[in-house]
């Protein structure tokens, strides 16, 4: 399933403002999708299964929820928050990374969001263009398709189980294949292992 890497959630009760922001974002060069959330709990719930990189919020929504917002930021350190400045809160809120007003030009808003996105990007993502497996990942994959467990792979390659898990995650990210039998087919079509090595 293709979904853009950037996911922006907008938490703003006014439908007019939400639609306006959504239109500006969708017509910009940002490759992203936009969701609307009504309350902070809804965002927390959403983030359990879908990552959100940027939250655009009406800071009034955070009133009396400062603790919850901080907790959310702690659980998701890469989440960036942009506040909509209505001129009510004079000082830059501690809870937001940037803010913009409704009278800013679309270019200005998109520019701020783009910078925010760069900031929130995971360092590993730079490598993402390259879908080739690294030599280490190939070793892990070879062990995997021969039916070894994480613990056995760790022992064989003299690495920690934690590292094995990380390699497995990257293999799935790069190949798009999650099941072991699927990875076996992948390994054979890429001639990483020969079919004789596999018990049919």
């Amino acid at each position, binding site marked *: *399933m293709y979904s853009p890497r950037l996911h922006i959630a907008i938490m703003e009760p006014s439908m007019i403002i939400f639609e306006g922001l959504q239109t500006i974002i969708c017509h910009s060069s940002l490759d992203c999708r936009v969701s609307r959330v009504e309350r902070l709990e809804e965002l927390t719930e959403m983030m359990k299964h879908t990552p959100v990189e940027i939250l655009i919020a009406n800071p009034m929504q955070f009133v009396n929820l400062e603790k919850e917002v901080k907790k959310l930021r702690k659980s998701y350190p890469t989440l960036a928050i942009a506040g909509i400045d209505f001129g009510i809160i004079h000082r830059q809120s501690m809870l937001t990374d940037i803010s913009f007003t409704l009278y800013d030009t679309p270019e200005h808003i998109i520019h701020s969001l783009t910078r925010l996105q760069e900031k929130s990007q995971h360092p590993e993502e730079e490598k993402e263009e390259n879908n080739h497996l690294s030599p280490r990942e190939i070793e892990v994959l070879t062990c995997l398709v021969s039916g070894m467990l994480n613990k056995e792979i760790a022992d064989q390659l003299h690495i920690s189980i934690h590292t094995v898990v990380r390699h497995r995650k990257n293999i799935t990210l790069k190949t*798009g*294949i999650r*099941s072991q*039998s*699927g990875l076996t087919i*992948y390994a054979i*079509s890429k001639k990483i292992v020969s079919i004789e090595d596999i018990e049919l």
Partner: protein
Amino acid sequence: MFHTPKTKVRPATKMAELIDANPHLLLMLQHFNIDFRVNDLTVWQLCIRQGISENLFVSIANLYNGFDIRGPQPFTRGDLLLVIDFLKSSHDFYRREKYPQISNYIRQLQENHPVREMKLLEKFFKEYFDEVLEHLDYEDSTAFPYFITLLEGRENDRPGKRYSSKEYGDHHTDIELKLQDLKNLLLMHVDIEGDLELRRKLLFALYELEFDLYIHSLIEEKILIPSGQQIEKEVNV
């Protein structure tokens, strides 16, 4: 996953226009056992003709059109019995139509391209299909009968029952995962050339299956399980 342009389904919309905008709704009609010749009936009129509650029909049609169900919906026990019929009918569709069709395409492809990966791909699909069948059998033999007893208010007939909506929710596995692997193997990795017609048919069939399975699990998660839990609460008070 494939997504149609979003059109919100409303009671006053003409059914034929909705189908025109999202042909997947035909599958929904089939699962509801409604004939495709919908004349110029609106959703509301169609529901009256078929004796289906408008609330249920609109909620499910909106799932097909990409709109989530928000908050608790007052589904009646009668609605939920219909939901079970709907889910059973989709099981039938998977068992009798979709999987045999996909399986045939893979076999043909394997015969045309007798490479090792294709042999493994066929085996992969067969194993996946067996898993799905097991899941469908479990729902037909354990989960659905439990819900039917619960909905018909006969739960006292079965003293000492241990089963619950929660257990069903836990058992509810992600059967779409391997399907995605299969799609990715065909689109990105397995080295076959030509045979575009057959490969397109196979991929289309996989997308159609994926979409319907997705809606299927949404109906279970968003309608059946929460409503079942609600009824269990009422019964136990």
